[in-house]
Structure formats: C-alpha cells, structure tokens
C-alpha cells in the first residue's frame, strides 16, 4: 500500500465512508462530518497509522490533502534520519 492508499484507509475509518476517494485537492469542505472533533481524531489516527508525529501547527491546519502529504513526508523524513 502506498502513502496515498494508506491515507485513504485512515480517512475511511475515521469518517466511516467505505468508498471515500481522496485527491490532493480535497479539502475539509469536501468530506461530510469533518468538524473540529473529527479533525482531532483524524490527525491522531494518521499519526498512529504512519507512526509519525506532526508539529503542533501542522496538526492545526493544512490547505488540502496535498499539503497534508507534504507534512507527512517531512515528519517521516525526520523519523528516518533519527
């Protein structure tokens, strides 16, 4: 499973939408049920699934899925460089 698919899996779990398809341009407005509580659950679930830690400000907001993936890359690179 690549990063995109794994991310999609997490979104499907958190929002309980089995057929959810993510695109880089997807934003919070595109997904029903994405409120502040769901956002916290989502970010935590992503951290668990990818075994990374976001910075506090990355947790708070991102423009779209593309930017979220960039955050993920950054957090993952930090992990692999120790």
């Amino acid at each position: 499973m690549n990063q995109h698919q794994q991310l999609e899996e997490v979104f499907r779990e958190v929002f309980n939408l089995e057929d959810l398809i993510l695109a880089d341009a997807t934003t919070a407005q595109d997904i029903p049920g994405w409120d502040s509580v769901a956002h916290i659950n989502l970010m935590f679930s992503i951290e668990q699934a990818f075994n990374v830690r976001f910075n506090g400000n990355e947790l708070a907001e991102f423009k779209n899925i593309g930017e979220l993936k960039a955050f993920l890359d950054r957090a993952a690179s930090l992990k692999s460089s120790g």
Partner: protein
Amino acid sequence: MPTHSIDLVAAQSLIAQGDDLKKSGQIEEAVSCYLTAAKGMDPPLAMLCLKLARGYERLGDFHSACRWTLAVVDAGDDFPAWQAASDLLQRCGSDGGVAKLRSVRVALTGSATTTQLAQMFKLAARRVGVGLEIYESPYGQYEQEIINPHSLLYGFAPDVLVLAVHERDLRLPQYSDSPERDIEAEAGRWEKLWEMVGQHAHTRLIQCNFALPSEAPMGHLGARLPRSRYMMTQAVNARIGERARNGVSILDCERLSSLFGKLRWFDPRYWHLGKQAVALNALPLLARHMTAVMAADLGLSRKCLVLDLDNTLWGGVIAEDGLAGIKLGHGVDGEAFVAFQEYILKLKQKGIVLAVCSKNNEADAKEPFEKHPEMRLKLDDIAMFVANWQPKPDNLRAIARALDLGLDSFVFVDDNPIEREAVRQILPEVDVISIPADPAYYAQALSNYLLFETSSFTSEDTSRTSQYRGRAQIMELQASATNLSDFYRSLDMKAMVASFDDFHLPRIAQLIGKTNQFNLTTRRHGMPQLQTFVKDPNCVHFYFRLRDCFADHGLVSLMIAVRRANVLEIDTWLMSCRVLGRTVEATMLQSLFERAQALGCTSIRGTYIPTAKNAMAKDVFAKFGFKLLEEGEGSTVWGFDLTVQQPIKNEFIEVVQSWEDSRESTPTT
C-alpha cells in the same frame, strides 16, 4: 499479551482473502473468512473485530455486529479502533448486543474537551452491559453547572455525575507561603461542590483526582518541599480521598497516568489544538476504569473468581509430575506462580470469593493445597472446590448453584484456550480472562481485569469466602435433614434487627447498590437519599444481621417503609441471596409489622417492580398472605390489613438486641 494458537501469517492471509471477497460483494463469504481467522486469536485483533462488525452490519445481522463491535474493547486500548467501534455502536447498537441493558444517565462535566471521552465511556460501559445516556456540560463550566440549582446538568437528572477535571484546574500557586491553608482551601472547594451536588440532585459522583504533570520545574527538590505545587497537589489528592464518602468515588487518574506513562498521557500538542487534557490514546484506558468505578457503584462488579489448577496455579500437571515435580516456589516460573497466588489472596482479602474448577482426580488436585510448602492458597481459601472430569461449563453451573451466585458474577481463569473458548461460547455471561502464555504476566493480566472494583470495604468483605463456605456446608445439612422445620431449628439462627445508623450506612448503601435478585423495587438510593430517610420521622427503616451455628453472615437484609396516614408503604425491601431459604423474609415482615403497629398503622402496602433479575421475589407478598390490590406493566401492589389479618411471626429466628459477645465488625472504609 494476546495468545494465538494459529500463526499470524495464516490469519493475515485469511483476512486478505476476506477483504478480496468483500470487495467483490461476497459479504457472507468474507465474514466466514474473518471468523476463521478470529478463531485462532485470543483475543482477536481489533482490526479484525471491526471487519466482522461491518460485515455483519452489511448483512443486516445487528446482533452479531454489536457483539463484534464490543469485542474491540477486549482487543486492546487502541483509540482509532475504539473510535470506529463507537461509531458502529451508534449505528447498530440499539438493535443488537446484550439482551438486557441497564440504562444509566451520566453527566460528564469538566474543564476540557469531553466529546471523545464520552464516546469511549459509552463503548466501555456497553461492554459490561450498561447503556449510557450522556449529558456533557458546556465546555469548562463544571462550577457554574454545579452551583446553579437550575442548570442543564440538574435538569438532566443524572444517576452518575463525573467530575472529569485535571491538574490545571487546581487553584494552587507554584510556591505557597502557607501550604496547609492553600491545600485545605482547595480540598474544601471540591468538597463544597460535592455537597452542592448532594443538595440539588440524587446522583452518585465520580471525582477524577489530579494527575501530576510530566513537567517538574522544581526537579527532585519539589518532592521534599511541602510548599511546592508538586507536593501540594499530592496532598490535595490525599485529602479528597480521605473525605470522599457518601456516594463519592475517586477515579485515581494520578495512578492511571503513571501506569500509562506520563509522557504519553499528556500530549501538549493536542491540549493546544483541542483542549484534550488526556492524550487520545489514553482515553480507552481511562474509559475502562471510569466504567469499573461506575459498575462498582451500581453493584455490577463480579464477585467470584474461578480458577483452574494445572499450569494456572502451579506449573506442570500434578497427576503426572507429582508433588515434587510441579513448578512452584523455585525458579522463575515457580516464583511467578507464587506471586500469582499471592495476588489472588489479595483479591480474596477484599471480598472476592474463590472457587476451583479443574479437570483432575479430586485427591490429586487437593494434594498441593494440603502438602506443598510453597502453596499460598489453602483449601480454607476456596469456597467451592470442584475437581472431576465433567465439562467445565457444567461445573461452573454447579458452582454457581452451590454458592447461590449468578453466573454473571463469575470470572474464569484458565491457561487452556480451549477451555476458555468452551466457557465463552456456552456461558457468555461468565467473564473469561485471556491469560498470556508466560506465568510471569498472570498477576498483571488479572489486575488488568477491572470488574473486581468495589466501592466500599468493610470487614464483612474480608470474611466473605468463609461465609460462602459456611453456606455450602448448610446446603449439605439441608440435603440430609428430613424435615425443614428441624433443619431450620438445627441452624440456631439469631438476628439483630435495628434502625439504620451511621455505622452501618456504608454497608447498607453497598447492598442497595448491588442487590439485584431479592429486591422488590430495585430503587438504588444513594447516601444522600438514605440520610433523608433516616431523618424522616415517618420513615421506618431497619437492617437485619444474621448468625447461625456455622457463620456470621453479617448485614444481609434491609427494609425501608414510609408512612402515609395509616398506611405503611414499603419503599425498599431487599435481601442478599446468600441467605435465601432461611426464613429471613418472615422475620423481616414480623419486624415491619411490629413497627407498623407501634406507629398506629392499620395496613401495609408493598410493591413488586419486575427487572431482568428479580423474578425470585415476585411471589413473596402472596406467600405471606398479602392481597393483590393493583397490577400493571408487570408491577404488582399488595396490601396486608393489620386490623383483620394475623401478623406474621417467625419461630425459627430469634431476634436479639445485640450479639452476646458483641464483637462488632468495624468498617474500614
């Protein structure tokens, strides 16, 4: 630590196969793949439970969907899995799962975000058969909600109020000039809030105590400076613990945060982001413990621990390895089994009844108890010892009958996964603990089982096993007696009947909280309500302590009745099942009639309100000559006319004012 009897690789490939089938729309086939994968796991992985739950949901089988959703709780404390399970429960929870849910209204009030905690709490409670309706206070308004008698919180009329507060709420300075004054003021503030709750609502209270933060500005010095916030926080925890009584329970968050690891319990990022006072991944643990404390308050805790012997209490098989060959006391495993036995003894000490259920010849099974110098458990510690070759579910039923306990108060420990599975399938009401393969972790596994939580501790608890042993002896006597009257007389029963007093109130509240079977109205009065009764001159209330030639059974029955004009109406009448069939009911009514006549009442009214568990009490009024007055929705109302009917007198129990040797048990709450 899960134990798996088939290898994980095989399970993974079954799961993958199931996923493919599901994608192609063959849900039924997918579910059957998942089920096969789950069979080899004890407990099954959370992810697999969720797949099964969703599969059953798609098939419209909400009962199975609910069962697998709740299995997530046993699979580990993983927040994302719990979150998904909580969503699933909302969708199919009303249709499936436990047949008889006890519903409880919970108000959750605090000073941080409680949304996720509320969902986790609901899931954990549902796992133990409690359906929660939760009211969450507006963010951060716990004080306003408690102080204002017209608040939404009081309007909700909760059965249980949880004060989910945290260390930031403490009004303590970093350093104090007069630590004692500050500690007292802060402890007093919480105590005042409890009092206000008591004035405005009939609710039990669960107070979270304060987890010391992970940051320590004073370093180690803080631990020897009584005026540091660090030491003052510990002091406030100790003080609210000392003062918590009358329906206030403490949820020991300080212990839980240490258990979980403070660096993980607190996550500053999620505090800044969404005011999560406790990290999301700690919420399942917190919710399970919150449930355990609530369950203890509601009398839903388990009472009896049933133990296997070979490879559970000692290493090896006694019938094959012999007394000298079993592992006990020496070597790493031998010491681990001793430690496990010592932990079991501590549970016995707090009132858990112990029983043995083993596939063995009885003489072999008893030999270590009688002769092995390293055995910590003795035969005296075991209320019921069953060693034979019958199936364990049959033996568990027999133990339940002999001890007169419900199977839903049983917890079963066995190292053999096949036996565990048999009990799970045949007796789903028994809780089965999945102990790991390594005996070093047995005690931890048992300690991680939370439903042995109790809400009070009296000296009766420490002697419970001997009471149950006495009862089993009585059953033998009863079997040999030819005539019931002679049998009752041979027991030499004496009762102490007296009005409620402060000394006995904790035990009375405990009984009211947990008696399910012989309980006519199942009204769960809390301590504040009990105190109201005690002060009310129109209220008749008394407890009943029983002794016989075998045992002191302690306080086993109580009655509350309220006088309205010339009618004395029974509000609450209950009796511990351990003294069923001993004519206690007759003496209870005899005592009630005497008090009714002293008050000048001319009749008694009694009500029976049916629940899932109290069918045994249904006919008690009819049995004693009460006349049926009203009937509706299963409830019945009965009357006894004192001006016409002959009052009841029980010749088998002598009522005394005090025990002659009057060695009173002391509550050690």
